[in-house]
């Protein structure tokens, strides 16, 4: 089977790091317009990662803003040897994982519902809380299958969710994922396989 290449807007953005250098230089010098251009270019990728990882549109937008603010403040320390996109994705991934960790310490309704669904025993009350009448984020998922996948994706562990989002939604290569997460390629490969198998079992009728 031929290797399947995921070509998305995000992967195209990753390959255009040479075009970013000029904007990065100007933004480092305090040019707000140059940094706004970088935000426009990568906001889709960053926001998608935050939304798929956090499962909430408002949280995702707030986190995306914080990710770009962190990147702007860290621009003077950005080494031009690596891709700006890889550097930005690393900031975004770590920020989302930190958000999930802080959520784990401060449980919310959605996570309580998610853990109960993971145990196969969802109570009607939790179902009512987790799946109320469609809100803004539900409106995004027009397809029932998408909503189901998003919900099961959120039920996975953060580690499995991360590799699935980075690989199967954001389209990064194994090497980039390993660079972002600080993992060896073999570890990325095995973790991705286990995550896919778990999602398959959850989606299986």
């Amino acid at each position, binding site marked *: *089977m*031929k*290797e*399947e290449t*995921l070509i*998305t*807007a*995000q992967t195209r953005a990753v390959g255009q790091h040479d075009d970013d250098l000029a904007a990065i230089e100007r933004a480092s010098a305090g040019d*707000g*317009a140059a*940094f*706004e251009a970088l*935000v*426009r270019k990568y*906001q*889709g*990728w960053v*926001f*998608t990662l935050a*939304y*798929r990882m956090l499962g909430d549109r408002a949280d*995702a*937008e707030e986190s*995306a*803003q914080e990710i*770009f*603010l962190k990147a*702007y403040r860290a621009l003077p320390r950005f080494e031009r040897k690596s891709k700006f996109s890889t550097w930005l994705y690393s900031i975004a991934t770590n920020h989302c994982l930190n958000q999930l960790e802080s959520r784990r310490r401060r449980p919310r309704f959605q996570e309580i519902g998610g853990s109960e669904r993971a145990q196969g025993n969802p109570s009607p009350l939790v179902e009512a809380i987790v799946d109320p009448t469609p809100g803004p984020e539900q409106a*995004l998922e027009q*397809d029932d*299958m*998408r909503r189901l*996948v*998003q919900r099961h*994706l959120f039920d996975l562990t953060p580690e499995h969710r991360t590799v*699935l989002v980075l690989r*199967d*939604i954001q389209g990064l290569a194994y090497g980039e994922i390993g660079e972002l997460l600080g993992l060896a390629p073999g570890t990325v*490969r095995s973790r*991705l*396989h286990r995550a*896919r*198998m778990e*999602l*398959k079992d959850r*989606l*299986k009728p």
Partner: protein
Amino acid sequence: MNCHDATARFSDLRDGHLSGDELAEVERHVTNCPVCRTEWVYFREAVEALHGLGSVEPSPGFAARVRAKIEAPPWHRRLARRLFIPWEIKLPLEAAALVLVAIGITVIYQRSPEMGQGVERPQVSRPPAQIETRQRDGTKLKRPAFREEERGARQPQVTPLTKGVTGPLRDDALGQARTDQDQRSGSTVSEPTPPKESPAPALTSPREAGQPTPPAAALEAKPTERLESADSARPLSALARSAAPAPFRIITLRTRDVASAEDRIRAWIGLVGGRLLDPPAASAPTPSEQRTLSLIVPVRAVPRLDALLVELGQLLGREFDVPPSDEVLISLTLSPKMAAPSGSE
């Protein structure tokens, strides 16, 4: 290859990481094993479903909002601005605080007259040592200085009257005051009355005494003298309170006949509602004997008294600046006037 080996390679198979014999073996097992073929279908659909989620865009204006945040001043500068920059709020608060403090000080000052006296009379502060006070029998009595200050604070209104009262006038007034007090209270206790005949008239005319006219301040007793006579001055202050003759005049009348002048004055003062503090002399005064009288005269009758005195002889004297009152205390010295050669006056 068994089912476990085949399913372990599903991801590699999905991502195209298998090749050669390994790829052929996995494809062969999945084709021939119905369980693994079903699992492979589910696996592939799950991954495809993830791909189908696609990307999500933030709300419009996201990039502009991020730019606005990065161009906003840091939090500590914003905090400082919130605290200090809105002068239109802070200044009125400071002004209001100043106004409240000023009002508070004014109210406290008005409700505490001692504070005002303390500000106006800083000389009250004296050495904290004990003050020697001489009693009437000549023995010295030591007492704390603050008692003197307390007395001064309790009787600030008698200070002008006691300023100029010295010598026989004070003693006469003292005796009369004690008599008045006894009559009012019905007390039978009598204290020794000071001698009426003073060895030397203290309120003689400055011109006659050959001394310059004593100013009001000069008539004030020295501190030690005042302390020595503090006990004897107390009844006089009581008299002053009862008669309220705050103003004070010192007059010398040079007349040819002292006795007849005294008689005229005694008769006149009863008509105008005044009173004479000095009782009549035990023996009829001679025309050439000097007499000193203390009169309390209604203010409205003072011009008439002056007219009478001018009629009786030559009038000398002065009047001190004192607060207005209904009555005036007058020390009148009747001095014999020698017959001058004609044309000398």
